[in-house]
């Protein structure tokens, strides 16, 4: 293009830095290409090698996750993980973060986060049956944080309600470190029969490649590297991504109808880095190449350059590879639903991603270079200084409160523990008429109508434990998620995750990340819940302050008989039993109060070490609890977590409307 910088200017003025690439990465790209990249090629490298798409700082650590199991039909690497739930049925699920866009425009940032994660699920051939969202803000005594909370919840409601997928679970927590960097993690779950499983691969030379759904505009250009640059408030704030839930509803129906015809070779949603990442990833999985022409992509704005079309993050679009000669099958289905469907190129076997503009080649890059050769960094890790100070805390130093009832009221008034009905009553959590356990319990249960089966869902985070001890924090996040599933009567099957951390180039942050993954992995192994999908969100940092390490876990379980489910609501006449390890030896109580809600809310202190967690004991406690519910012995169940036993009992009393 006329005004686009030449290869010489890119190198001379180090323009690659504007796209978030280091000098070393630029030279590596030129080496793989065998020549210096032009502007469009540089754009492809910059988004594919961004932290968001390449996982360059996290890839090596993520290998630690256990991802196998008899119940796993599809592990990490595809658009969503897929798990068998028996009787020929399976669930696809994933969680994704939209933190940086939500800091800029909270309503649309949250809405497009929901839209994106829904596409990751139905692209696997599953019909979406539930949404959950995990949110973090600064303390709510500040008007800006209340504005962000209001707009993010309205955005999630606006999108989820309009598309007709029930938002049934999640959590909202508040802490100082999220003040300038809110977290918006969205999870979607879909249901399918085993034979419906579709995959994101571009196989078969000559097969047509099609862009379907909405038209393409300049939305979120550089959203991918945008997400990886450090400070959300100083970034380029022009092209805000706007979601259209109505069009996505049509897209869900059209895509599921198209997949059912059997004429689809591969399908993937266009998320961060739009056409570039979907095209490159689909070709990489099949070991093939793509020859596409951006002039054929249906557009919403005039005068878009090939660079802009390849990097656009316009919403509600999918990339589809059809069987050769079956293009008309797609065109007809999409016309019925009032959507675009255009052939933009072919699958090739030369392993190249070749981009044309009206026939003229404007970019030609080996797929391997973009996907497999992305740099992989082994970042240095160092235990944060503050841990030693935290662990110097002694339980004996803390004065005992005179009145325990006042302490309990303080805890129940904590924004983290307070009732969140104000949030979830804005979500349609009953559409699809299948919600057997509604928000407010330990987990949600979706009843598969026409069967006795239910799918249990929840999200959980480590709270402050991960700050005090990242390893224990990772373990607690997984253990608590599994515990919540068990408390509604479900057998935990697998998890997805959103690993929200600060700047990985800081050794303390990378230590937190690596330790949290280690902790999560150990808990997954003992509790038998492999990781089947997930997302890493780094650079959650503003004005030099990193967020607390926040590994969010999304857990899925199965209820074999929906007549045997449980909620915290107890009834008069029941005996209350506490199941778990015995009370701590006298003098050791402090071990269980480190990083507790009590210590923070009553004494205003964050200190101590995360409570000890015996994973083997956890597994046995969960097994006993699940058996008790299955046998009908237990009529109510609730996990003891933040706020401890006192809060757990209070919450059951409130849920049941009866004291104890």
């Amino acid at each position: 293009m006329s005004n686009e910088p030449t290869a010489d200017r890119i190198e001379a003025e180090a323009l690659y830095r504007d796209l978030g690439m280091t000098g070393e990465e630029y030279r590596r790209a030129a080496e793989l290409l065998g020549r210096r990249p032009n502007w469009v090629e540089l754009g492809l490298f910059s988004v594919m090698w961004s932290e968001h798409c390449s996982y360059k700082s996290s890839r090596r650590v993520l290998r630690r996750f256990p991802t196998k199991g008899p119940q796993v039909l599809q592990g990490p690497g595809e658009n969503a993980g897929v798990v068998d739930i028996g009787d020929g049925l399976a669930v696809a699920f994933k969680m994704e973060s939209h933190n940086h866009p939500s800091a800029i425009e909270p309503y649309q940032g949250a809405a497009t986060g929901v839209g994106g994660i829904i596409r990751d699920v139905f692209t696997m051939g599953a019909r979406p049956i539930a949404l959950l969202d995990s949110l973090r803000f600064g303390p709510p005594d500040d008007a800006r944080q209340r504005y962000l909370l209001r707009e993010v919840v309205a955005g999630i409601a606006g999108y989820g309600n309009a598309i007709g997928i029930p938002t049934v679970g999640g959590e909202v927590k508040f802490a100082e470190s999220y003040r300038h960097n809110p977290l918006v993690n969205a999870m979607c779950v879909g249901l399918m029969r085993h034979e419906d499983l579709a995959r994101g691969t571009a196989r078969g030379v000559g097969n047509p490649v099609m862009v379907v759904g909405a038209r393409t505009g300049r939305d979120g250009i550089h959203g991918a590297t945008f997400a990886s640059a450090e400070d959300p408030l100083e970034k380029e704030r022009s092209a805000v991504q706007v979601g259209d839930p109505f069009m996505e509803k049509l897209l869900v129906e059209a895509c599921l109808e198209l997949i059912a015809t059997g004429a689809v070779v591969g399908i993937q949603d266009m998320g961060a880095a739009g056409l570039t990442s979907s095209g490159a990833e689909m070709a990489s999985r099949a070991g093939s190449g793509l020859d596409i022409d951006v002039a054929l992509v249906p557009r919403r704005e005039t005068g878009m350059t090939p660079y802009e079309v390849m990097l656009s993050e316009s919403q509600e679009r999918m990339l589809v590879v059809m069987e050769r000669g079956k293009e008309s099958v797609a065109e007809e289905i999409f016309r019925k639903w009032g959507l675009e469907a255009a052939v933009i190129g072919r699958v090739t076997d030369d392993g190249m991603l070749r981009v044309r503009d009206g026939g003229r080649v404007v970019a030609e890059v080996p797929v391997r270079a973009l996907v497999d050769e992305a740099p992989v960094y082994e970042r240095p890790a160092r235990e944060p200084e503050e841990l030693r100070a935290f662990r110097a805390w002694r339980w004996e130093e803390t004065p005992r409160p005179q009145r325990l009832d006042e302490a309990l009221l303080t805890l129940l008034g904590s924004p983290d523990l307070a009732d969140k009905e104000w949030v979830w009553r804005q979500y349609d959590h009953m559409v699809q008429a299948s919600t057997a356990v509604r928000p407010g319990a330990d987990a949600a249960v979706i009843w598969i109508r026409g069967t006795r089966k239910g799918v249990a869902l929840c999200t959980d985070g480590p709270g402050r434990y991960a700050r005090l001890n990242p390893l224990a924090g990772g373990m607690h996040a997984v253990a608590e998620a599994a515990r919540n599933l068990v408390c509604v009567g479900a057998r935990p099957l697998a998890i997805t995750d959103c690993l929200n951390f600060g700047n990985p180039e800081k050794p303390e942050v990378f230590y937190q990340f690596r330790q949290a993954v280690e902790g999560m992995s150990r808990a997954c192994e003992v509790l038998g819940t492999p990781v089947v999908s997930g997302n890493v969100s780094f650079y959650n940092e503003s004005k030099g302050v990193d967020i607390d390490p926040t590994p969010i876990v999304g857990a899925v379980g199965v209820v074999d008989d929906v007549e045997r489910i449980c909620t915290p609501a107890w009834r008069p006449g029941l005996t209350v039993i506490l199941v778990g390890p015995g009370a701590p030896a006298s003098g050791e109580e402090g071990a269980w109060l480190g990083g507790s809600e009590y210590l923070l809310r009553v004494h205003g202190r964050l200190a101590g070490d995360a409570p000890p967690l015996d994973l083997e004991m956890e597994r046995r406690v969960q097994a006993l609890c699940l058996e008790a519910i299955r046998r009908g012995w237990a009529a109510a169940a609730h996990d003891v977590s933040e706020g401890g036993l006192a809060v757990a009992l209070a919450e059951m009393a409130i849920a049941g409307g009866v004291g104890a």
Partner: protein
Amino acid sequence: MYRARVYVTLKAGVLDPQGGAVERALHALGYAEVRGVRIGKAIEVTLAAPDAETARRRVEEMCRELLANPVMETFEVEAV
């Protein structure tokens, strides 16, 4: 007492799904001559002010602070 009318509209380039849906509906109703529809807000503010000029300045301040979202919207103040 002054009555100012403020128009808050989406910035160019920002997708307007609602405008698109209304445009398609108008075409379906036979208004083929319609080339585009953009939907924004019309906010009428009644306020006390010493003179029209101050009224206009204050309303513009309100727009920057609350009535328009600077990230995706522009505003125009018309004193009535």
